[in-house]
């Protein structure tokens, strides 16, 4: 025992010192870094809201600004006037996200559970099968051909859900989570008590791994909510089922294309550019997109925090 630890022990006894505590200097540095990081996350969002409420006149004159010359709710009025198209795609986004998350999480758990069980014979094979697709993909065109011609994923909701149902990355997260939180003894005990395989999974294992499921559900629902590329690939004629994210992305891509090709297209580009939606309208749509998914975070957060602590060494 050195003199230092002796004095430390004394301090602990006196209640003035904790092993988990940092010095004031260190702590303020941490606070500064974290505050800066939080600001970096939140400022763009506030900026988007300000732009959405800026008047078009102000954007035209001084560009994007935290302090616009004049305010306006015109973009939102216009968004509401979009009416059916907007609400329809809003509904689509919710539907795709809800159904997709539910199916995807079930599939992930059902795939990951056998891989976690050491007594499963084909464990290595199925492990490899999913892992392999993480490294080697089929490429865009072959995937497109299979999805469209073989699976019939074209102009329907399935086309926007099925291609993203299975993610090897999520399976690996889930498997690892099972390995670290569910002891083999628990399953053995359940078996001895007469629990069948399904009952063990549903009644014993699932309640233990809720935080893991919540983490995956968050990842998957985010991916579904933000997805627009599948719509671009598989929606051709039935634009009714377009999600909100694609509606916005299409506006953005139209503007980008016209900007890139304006010198080639000439008068046509100028005419088309004049028809494009205003900047504040785009930002209003961004607000529409961000708000619901931002609301989902606090809901999942509880489990995610639990998931962070649950895996650590206890006792």
């Amino acid at each position: 025992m050195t003199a230092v630890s002796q004095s430390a022990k004394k301090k602990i006894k006196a209640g003035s010192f904790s092993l988990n505590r940092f010095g004031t200097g260190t702590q303020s540095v941490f606070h500064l870094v974290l505050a800066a990081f939080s600001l970096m996350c939140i400022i763009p969002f506030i900026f988007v809201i300000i732009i959405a409420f800026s008047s078009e006149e102000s954007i035209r004159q001084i560009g994007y600004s935290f302090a616009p010359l004049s305010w306006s709710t015109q973009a939102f009025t216009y968004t509401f006037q979009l009416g059916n198209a907007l609400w329809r795609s809003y509904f689509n986004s919710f539907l795709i996200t809800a159904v997709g998350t539910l199916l995807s999480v079930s599939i992930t758990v059902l795939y990951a559970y056998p891989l976690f069980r050491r007594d499963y014979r084909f464990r290595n094979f199925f492990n490899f099968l999913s892992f392999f697709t993480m490294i080697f993909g089929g490429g865009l065109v072959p995937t497109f051909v299979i999805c469209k011609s073989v699976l019939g994923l074209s102009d329907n909701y399935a086309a926007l859900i099925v291609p993203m149902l299975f993610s090897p990355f999520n399976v690996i997260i889930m498997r690892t989570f099972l390995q670290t939180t569910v002891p083999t003894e628990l399953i053995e005990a359940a078996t001895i008590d007469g629990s069948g395989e399904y009952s063990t999974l549903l009644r014993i294992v699932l309640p233990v791994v809720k935080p893991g499921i919540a983490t995956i559900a968050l990842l998957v629902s985010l991916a579904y909510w933000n997805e627009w590329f599948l719509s671009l690939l598989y929606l051709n004629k039935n634009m009714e089922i377009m999600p909100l994210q694609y509606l916005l992305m299409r506006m953005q891509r139209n503007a980008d294309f016209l900007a890139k090709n304006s010198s080639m297209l000439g008068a046509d580009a100028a005419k088309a550019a004049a028809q494009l939606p205003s900047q504040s309208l785009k930002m209003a749509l961004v607000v529409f997109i961000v708000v619901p998914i931002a609301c989902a975070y606090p809901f999942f957060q509880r489990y995610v925090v639990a998931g962070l602590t649950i895996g650590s060494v206890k006792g």
Partner: protein
Amino acid sequence: MKKFLSLILTLALILSVCSFAAADDLPTITIMFHGSNVSDDSAVLEKVNEYIADKVGAKLEVIWGTWGDFDEKAVNALTSGDKDVDIVFTCSWSSDEYNSYAKKGYFLKLDDLIEQYGADLKAAIPESLMQAATIEGAEGKGVYAVNGFKDTATQNTWDVNVTLLTELGYTVDDLMAKGFFGWDEIFAKAKEVKGDSFYPFLVEPMVAERMVTNSIIVAGDAGSTNLLSLYLNPEDVSADGIYGNKLVNKFGTPEYKAFAEQMHKYYEAGYIDPALSVGETSNDCRTNHQKDASYLIGTQSYAFGYEYSADVLARGAEIKFVPCTDPYVDTTASQGAMMAINSASEHPEEAFKFLALLNSDPTLMTLMNYGVEGIHYTLNDEGLVIFNDEARATYSPWTNGVGNVTILPDTASEGKGFRKSFQEYYAGAKGIPSLGFVFDNSPVENEMAALGNVAAQYALALDCGAVDPETELPSFLAALDAAGMEAYLNEANAQLEAYLAK
């Protein structure tokens, strides 16, 4: 085993009955357009299908590609041999799709079909457009797409805000007499009158460069940042320019240097909005200032009748487009909007019949382009089209992307006889000496990629005058040389010589 066999045979029987039953129905052909803004096509398609049932013997379905997603959709459909897409839009301006896709065998060669069903089409479209579509493709030399009759010549113009110019005490003639190198005084006065935050010179930098140096785009050159120039003769576009029929390094000529220096002077004096020198903001900035006519002189690649279009009329000032040269027909403009048949299509004959009808039959073209009379537009006493803005908001295809626009009726804003003068205007346009030449960049692909990166770094800032050509131009040229400009230029010139020798 027997059971299994009988099951299969029964299934086969049912299937064959089904396919017989289906044979009574008309086949469906699908066409994919570019640049459209359509969310409700039901009324139009109902009429179209009624109209074409006998004439074409097929039903039509449409994929309304938009500016942003067309390229991706078309590439996917063509490379994956998607049978569900029969007709696709193609052109040579965005990434030279027409020439390269025809070479890769994605498009059907149409010569036989034209021979068989194309009499009306040939009568409706000028011979020169057929010529422009005749290229070396996968199945040999031939026509691989139906060329739309639109503004088939290029003409760059100065976009002049006459209202403001008059307010400043000048006329358009003064402006043109002084010329690009002598506008300091006028710009200074505009700044003085309109305030310090007013930028009189609203240029699209790369277009301005072509206008001042009288150079043109070479089809097949690097995409968004061109590297090659072909100099025109501004007095007579069908004669050779100052460098003859030779391609030059766009940034290496004394003409370019003079242009960049003058732009830098204007930029330094505050006549050009700095937002124009940044690729991401350039187009937005231009559109915004055009909307409320807050500029004095701009650049505009012109199409006949553009001054009558809704967005120019809405600017709230008198706008005049003053041409730099006569309109000229070059390869890029003459392959501007075409329709090709997918080589994987199962109904090529019907697809071609539809294309031929679309480009020669005013009823069908009007229906597809302007919509249904009584819903999307009405006719006034003179028989001119007045659009119903509300219905057009859900149905506005890209007019020039549909096909032969010369058979469309005149609109009220364009005035009576517009389409006829439009047709005459472009029929009279002269071709440049090397019309039809497309640079095949595949032998120098690597150089092109490297050169494109270098150009992306310097070109816009130089064209816009944001940097000093005295220091930047030499380092730009050195970087181009290091990236293989000489090899690129030699290859292009060798191809051009071979083309002209033919």
